C-alpha cells in the first residue's frame, strides 16, 4: 500500500525524506494525509494538535 509523507505530501517510498523527518513532529504537525496525500485541516493548540482528512478522519498528537 502506498503511503505519503505528512510533511511534503509525496510518496514515502520515493525520494529522500530525511529533511521532512527532521521537522515532522519536532516543529511541524503533519499537513498531508498519510493514506491519500490530501491536505489536512490542522489545528495547533498550546499542548497538542489535531489534523483532519476529509476522507480518512482525524489524527492527533494525543494518539
Amino acid at each position, binding site marked *: 500500500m502506498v503511503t505519503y509523507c505528512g510533511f511534503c505530501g509525496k510518496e514515502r517510498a520515493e525520494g529522500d525524506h530525511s529533511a521532512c523527518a527532521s521537522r515532522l513532529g*519536532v516543529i511541524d504537525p503533519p499537513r498531508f494525509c498519510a493514506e491519500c496525500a490530501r491536505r489536512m485541516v490542522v*489545528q495547533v*493548540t498550546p499542548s497538542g494538535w489535531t489534523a483532519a482528512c476529509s476522507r480518512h478522519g482525524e489524527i492527533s498528537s494525543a494518539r
Partner: protein
Amino acid sequence: MTAAPEQVDVLAVAREQVLEQGVGLSEEQVLEVLRLPDDRIPELLELAHAVRMRWCGPEVEVEGIVSLKTGGCPEDCHFCSQSGQFPSPVRSAWLDIPGLVKAARQTAETGASEFCIVAAVRGPDKRLLSQVRDGIKAIREDGNDIQIACSLGMLTQEQVDELVDMGVHRYNHNLETARSHFPNVVTTHSWEERWDTLKMIRAAGMEVCCGGIIGMGETLEQRAEFAVQLAELEPDEVPLNFLIPNPGTPYENYPVVEGPEALRTVGAFRLALPRTILRFAGGRELTFGDLGAKQGMLGGVNAIIVGNYLTNLGRPAQDDLDMLTELAMPIKELSKTL
C-alpha cells in the same frame, strides 16, 4: 600630527550607559554589537543578562498562544505559511469556543500569566470580534483569570475601543522588521499602517506588544535599525522570532539563523531595550536547540512562549518550565500582572 581617535569598546560603553543609566544603545552602537566576533559573545550575554536583572528583575513572564483563525489570510507577508497568496500546505481552520477555553486552561495550568488569541487576518471583521468577545467571556466563566492578549491585525479606533471593553490588556502587532526592509517582506500593507495601529493601542491604554522576525534577508544595518525603531515605540513587550522557513512561502529556502548570530541579536536587542519584556518566540527550537535556549535566557531574555505556536510546534511546556527551575528564574505570577 594629530593622534588617531581612541577606539572605545562598545561593551564598555554599554556597561556604563545601559547597565548603570538604563539608556538603550543607539543604532550605531547596536550595529557595533551585532558585529562583535564570536569570542566576545559570552561577554555580551553576561552584560545583557546583568541589564535584564537590573532593569527588569529575575522574573520570567510565561505566555501561551493559540490560533483562533488559521490560514486564508489575504496579506502577503513572505514569511507566513498562513497567507492565502502562497501555495502553503496550511489550510483554513477556526477554533471553536470550547477549544479556546481548553487552550486557555492548559496555558494557565503551566503557571503562565498571559494567553494570546491570534487570528490570521488583515484586520478583524464583526464575526471575528464577536468570536473573541464570546471566547473571553467563556474563558472567564471557566474560572480562568489569566491575562488575555490579542493579535488580530490592523485595527480601527472603534475596534481598539471594543477590545478595551472586552478586557484585553495587551495587543500584539509586530512591525516584523526594519522600516527600510518591510517593503521586501510585505507588499499588501505598509509599515506605517502597522505603526498607526500600535499608536492607537498605546493611546487606548492597552499594553503594546511589538516585535518581529530575525533572518528574513535583512542586513545587520537593518537589524540595528529595527532595534532602535522598536525602542522608539517603547513597547511593553518585544517578541523575538527567528525565521522558520516554511514550505510554500517565498522564504522556504532561506537559511535558519545560526546560533551565534541569534545570540548576538538577543544581546543587542536587550542593550537597545533595557526595560522591555524581551520574549523568546517562534523559531528558537530550530535556531538554538535546547542548549541555546538556556544561553538566551541567560543573555537578556525574560519571557517565553511555552508550548506550541500558531502553526508550528514548540518544545513541551514542561521542558521550558524545568529549564527555568534549573536557572533559578521564578515565573512571574499572575497576581503581579493584575
